[in-house]
């Protein structure tokens, strides 16, 4: 064992954290304990979150905003209270800067549609090769529609954004820069603040895909310097079916609506309609009410533990895992191999065994990892690999689970006779 592995230390009381997540003590087929190393895909939920959802449905359920009765007032207070909680959690200066969507994919489409709608031929949008598909496809679609040009940062051999041509990429034609804060495939943490300053220097907007950042890092959007930031509920120990778009209020107020329908209107006439101010303008139809309430409980839960502690734990686990994985023969890590600026996801290849087969064999030992391109095909193409295996960690991940992974990979090698 290397030093890093023997000296593991985390500020979290893992036993008490894990007690909040009933699924972690679930038995899998064959009586195996669960080793859940797929949190970058979707996090597990503490009982506090599930309880909040249940309470809402069984005691306070009603539609919001429009309902004038007591249940309606309670549901509205719960929904709008969740907006307050989320605003505080990410340091938004104004609660009206928080738009609830169904996931971050919708949030990014909303941005591409409304901000991108005014793009013209000659304008440029800059993304990167390490983006999740949800921060690629919406931009491809809007560029195709408007005639704008899509450009992208490359990725260096060690899995960092290739900034060597940054001043060429971000130029006076650039209207939007949209980047992931933490890569879900490589784990890379990108220098958003610096890049936001570059974007602003040429008058471009900075959009941040914080789907993997908000779960792991203490976030303050006011300090980040970005204009629009999105994240998704199910990765922050919250429910599926809810995402968040934060935007500077004056920017949001200048944008046209995205989806049309109830709640987002001011006056509807058959001959034309006017629209409500943000955030309502962007929340057409009955919003994900119980899901926002669950998300509120989730950010309360994370704040209660402390995002600084969670970040420290994540760092310690990543360091431990990197060291452990390096002991597996034939294993190549995609992306940064040091824990510095490394989020809680590590993708790797194992010589002679296809990632699906790695994942399936690990699964028969109760170890849940992801195999494929993790919705980030271009970065796999960049590294010349068809797919990879990814292990990802969260506040409940223990060093013993990392050991189980490392041992499991040894078994995979012997099973496929590559050892």
């Amino acid at each position, binding site marked *: 064992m290397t030093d890093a592995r023997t000296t593991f230390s985390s500020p979290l009381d893992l036993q008490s954290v894990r007690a909040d997540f009933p699924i972690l003590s679930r038995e899998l087929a064959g009586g195996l304990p669960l080793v859940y190393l797929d949190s970058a895909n979707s996090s597990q939920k503490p009982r506090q979150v599930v309880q909040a959802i249940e309470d809402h449905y069984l005691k306070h359920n009603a539609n919001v905003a429009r309902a004038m009765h007591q249940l309606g007032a309670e549901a*509205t207070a719960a929904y709008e209270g969740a907006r307050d909680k989320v605003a505080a959690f990410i340091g938004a200066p104004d609660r009206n800067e928080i738009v609830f969507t169904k996931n971050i994919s919708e949030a990014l489409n909303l941005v591409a549609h409304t901000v991108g709608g005014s793009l013209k031929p000659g304008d440029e949008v800059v993304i990167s090769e390490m983006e999740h598909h949800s921060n690629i496809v919406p931009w491809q679609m809007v560029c195709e529609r408007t005639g704008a040009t899509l450009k992208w940062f490359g990725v260096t051999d060690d899995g960092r954004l290739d900034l060597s041509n940054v001043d060429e990429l971000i130029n006076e034609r650039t209207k939007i820069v949209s980047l992931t804060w933490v890569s879900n495939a490589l784990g890379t943490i990108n220098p958003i603040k610096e890049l936001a300053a570059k974007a602003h220097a040429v008058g471009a907007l900075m959009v941040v895909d914080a789907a993997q950042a908000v779960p792991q890092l203490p976030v303050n959007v006011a300090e980040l310097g970005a204009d629009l930031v999105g994240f998704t509920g199910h990765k922050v120990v919250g429910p599926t079916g809810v995402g968040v778009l934060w935007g500077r209020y004056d920017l949001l107020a200048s944008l046209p609506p995205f989806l049309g329908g109830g709640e987002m209107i*001011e*006056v509807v006439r058959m001959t034309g309609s006017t629209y409500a101010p943000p955030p*309502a303008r962007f929340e057409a139809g009955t919003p994900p009410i119980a899901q926002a309430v669950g998300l509120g409980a989730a950010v309360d839960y994370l704040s209660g533990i402390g995002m600084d502690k969670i970040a420290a734990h994540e760092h310690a686990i990543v360091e431990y895992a990197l060291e452990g994985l390096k002991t597996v023969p034939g294993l190549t890590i995609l992306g940064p191999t040091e824990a510095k600026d490394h989020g809680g996801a590590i993708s790797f290849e194992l010589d002679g065994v296809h990632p699906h087969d790695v994942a399936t064999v690990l699964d028969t030992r109760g170890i849940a990892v992801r195999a494929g391109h993790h919705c980030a095909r271009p970065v796999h193409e960049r590294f010349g690999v068809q797919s990879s295996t990814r292990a990802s960690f969260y506040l409940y991940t223990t060093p013993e689970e990392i050991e189980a992974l490392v041992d499991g990979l040894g078994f995979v090698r012997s099973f496929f006779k590559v050892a």
Partner: protein
Amino acid sequence: MQLDSLYQEIILDHYRSPHHTGLADPYDVEVHHVNPSCGDEVTLRVELDGDTVTGITHESVGCSISQAATSVMSDLVIGKPVAEGMATYEKFLELMQGRGNVEPDEEVLEDGVAFAGVAQFPARVKCALLGWSAWRDATARALAQNESQDAAQQEGVSNA
């Protein structure tokens, strides 16, 4: 009991015979505000003389609370400096958002204290604020408009 605390006689009186209705001429700015969740609407005109609110008139469709609140607001603000009207608004807002825990200041709010009970009906708070938001919007615009006219006059430029 809860009901009577909401629908105080003062409110019902203002509702039945609201003050300052009928849109007067001349005026500086007219605005139209709506409460999209329920459909209440108010058209409101404001006239300023320098920093003083010399006139407010309004026409509205809406419930007793929104109509009465607009009526009371007009009474409170007409003849006062804009800053004082805004301060009164802040007091009223504080009362509305207090969920019943704020003691209303009768000195400042006069008939407005009758709305104390509204704070216990969160869904109705918007009704009580509709006229106020129209007035604040109209006044802000009127101030900006008058300022730019003054500036234009000082520069000797005349606007059509």
